């Protein structure tokens, strides 16, 4: 029996998952962008760049049209998680739902609505070129594992990982995927807002000794919270920062792109996530708190102008 999957939030990352999975499963996509939905249903979902394929995906903006699914893959921006999963939850009554979003705290929002949850972290990224067409900018792995408070069974996790890998997105199933998630979280929470607040691309910001020092301080706080949670990072975020100076020197962090477009950022799930988990464990995170407040303040400034 074919696996049926619904990607919830079919933006750039969601589209990468949907199109790749379409080769090995029946794939639905829930998205509110009407022109994107119509283009996918008319022409298929096209990926160019690092990958080159067209996936046959059924897209809809109406949750009632989604049939019962074995898996959900939530790929919305974090501030839309709650609304998106509340709308689509009935499709996953007999399935499990995996978050592949940025930051921490999304699984906690998904869990109250569904039976079984998978914690995921993904590195591939892209951008929407036009409705129905996403350019994949970077490759990379995806890590998934049971979300401990409301876990999917390990064989369920493994089945999803196998399907994704077979579809062309290398995915690793692991009993504890927090290490991958926190590594990416700490990397993003240290590098993204620095770009957003200064206007500088990654390399331009992190080559400055003063900013590198600030970023090191942000990483150290994140690491202390991970330690307190018993999470073992799967690589050193500081090394990732330095590596990215070389390979993504002129890349504008997604949060800087959001700020330039005056879109709400994911800071609540990045620095805000580190701060919240830190407080739960009695670990102080003053620099992450400061960055969180500054980015929230910046978002607030857009509502004063108009």
């Amino acid at each position, binding site marked *: 029996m074919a696996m049926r999957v619904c990607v919830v939030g079919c933006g750039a990352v969601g589209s990468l998952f949907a199109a790749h999975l379409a080769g090995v499963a029946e794939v639905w996509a829930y998205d509110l962008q009407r022109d994107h939905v119509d283009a996918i249903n008319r022409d298929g979902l096209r990926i160019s760049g690092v990958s080159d394929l067209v996936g046959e995906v059924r897209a809809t903006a109406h949750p009632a049209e989604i049939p019962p699914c074995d898996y959900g893959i939530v790929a919305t921006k974090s501030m839309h998680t709650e609304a998106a999963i509340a709308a689509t939850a009935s499709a996953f009554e007999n399935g499990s739902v995996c978050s592949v979003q940025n930051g921490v705290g999304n699984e906690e929002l998904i869990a109250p609505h569904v039976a079984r949850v998978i914690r995921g972290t993904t590195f591939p990224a892209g951008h929407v070129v036009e409705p129905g067409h996403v350019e994949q900018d970077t490759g990379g792995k995806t890590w998934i594992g049971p979300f401990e408070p409301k876990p999917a069974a390990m064989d369920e996790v493994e089945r999803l990982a196998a399907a994704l890998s077979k579809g062309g997105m290398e995915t690793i199933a692991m009993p504890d995927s927090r290490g991958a998630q926190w590594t990416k979280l700490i990397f993003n929470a240290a590098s993204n807002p620095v770009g957003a607040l*200064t206007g500088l691309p990654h390399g331009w910001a992190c080559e400055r000794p003063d900013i590198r020092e600030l970023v090191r*301080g942000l990483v150290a706080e994140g690491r202390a919270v991970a330690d307190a949670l018993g999470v073992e990072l799967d690589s050193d975020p500081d090394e990732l920062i330095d590596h990215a100076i070389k390979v993504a020197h002129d890349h504008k962090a997604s949060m800087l792109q959001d700020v330039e477009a005056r879109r709400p950022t994911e800071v609540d799930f990045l620095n*805000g996530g580190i701060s919240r988990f830190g407080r739960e464990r009695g670990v102080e995170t003053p620099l992450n*708190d*400061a*960055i969180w*407040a*500054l980015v929230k*303040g910046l978002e607030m400034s857009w509502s004063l102008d108009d």
Partner: protein
Amino acid sequence: MGRTIESVCVVGAGTIGSLYAGHLAQVAEVTVLTRRREQAAALNEAGLQVSGKSDLRARVTASHQPDGIDDVDLAIVACKAVDLPRTAERLEGRFRRAAVMTVQNGLGAEEVVRLHGEWPLISAVTFMSGTRRSDTHVEYELDTATWMGPYMAGGPPYETVQELERLLIAGGLEAEAMPDLRPAQWSKLIFNSAVNGVAALTDLPHVHAFAEEDEFSDLGHLLRGLIDEGKAVAAAAGIELHDDPWEMNVRAVTRGETQRSDYAHVPSMLADVRARRPTEVDYISGALAREGERLGVPAPLNTALYRLVKAREASWR
């Protein structure tokens, strides 16, 4: 006691300099040393107009060259801190009988001026603010005081500062002389480091959110942290603050509150960032961070603001 300040030269005719010149011209002979030739010409032609909290016109003698200004009893150096080094250099050898007052934000202005002459120095901080309408017209917005005191490492007699206080008040400004300005200077330094830095990075004017601490991510929470750090550095420096900077912050966001955030004051550093000008952050958050380091009291939040603003400046180049 006889009057010793009959003539004043205001050096730098931006907003603050124009406010001093316009008001003091009501009670003293005022000359203005500008950076640009056109502004000097315009001031000689049209005089100086102040509107807003005051409504007055003043006749002033202006020049863009130090040679064009006669010796005076008092010089007020009112340029921005970033322009101070080259402005002070222009005064070298001038105003031999004058006392010189610095009104720049932050710390370190007196030391910069001292490099160029042995004048008795008056330290000052000013809380008044306004908006430049043109080369010859300034709007007086916040009619708050200038605090002044003899520079501890070489100032005039305190009586001179008291005379200046009377003169400024007679001209229509608020002023207060103090035997030791450092407590006030540090209060403003700590306040400015927090408020200006946060405004510059968030693009927010000084709105009520700067004093809200309900949520962990509220700006008031950050302001409180920045100010507490500054107070610890001040304590280590042996300074007993004149005003509590947190109370200054709360007062500033509630003063004349109109419920309309667009009336909130735009701190000068935010104005600089919006205009993509170099900011005074080196003299403010940078100075506080350096003092903290020197005294062994770390100020990581003020240091973080300093670094972010410096990087923001770099993004324009």
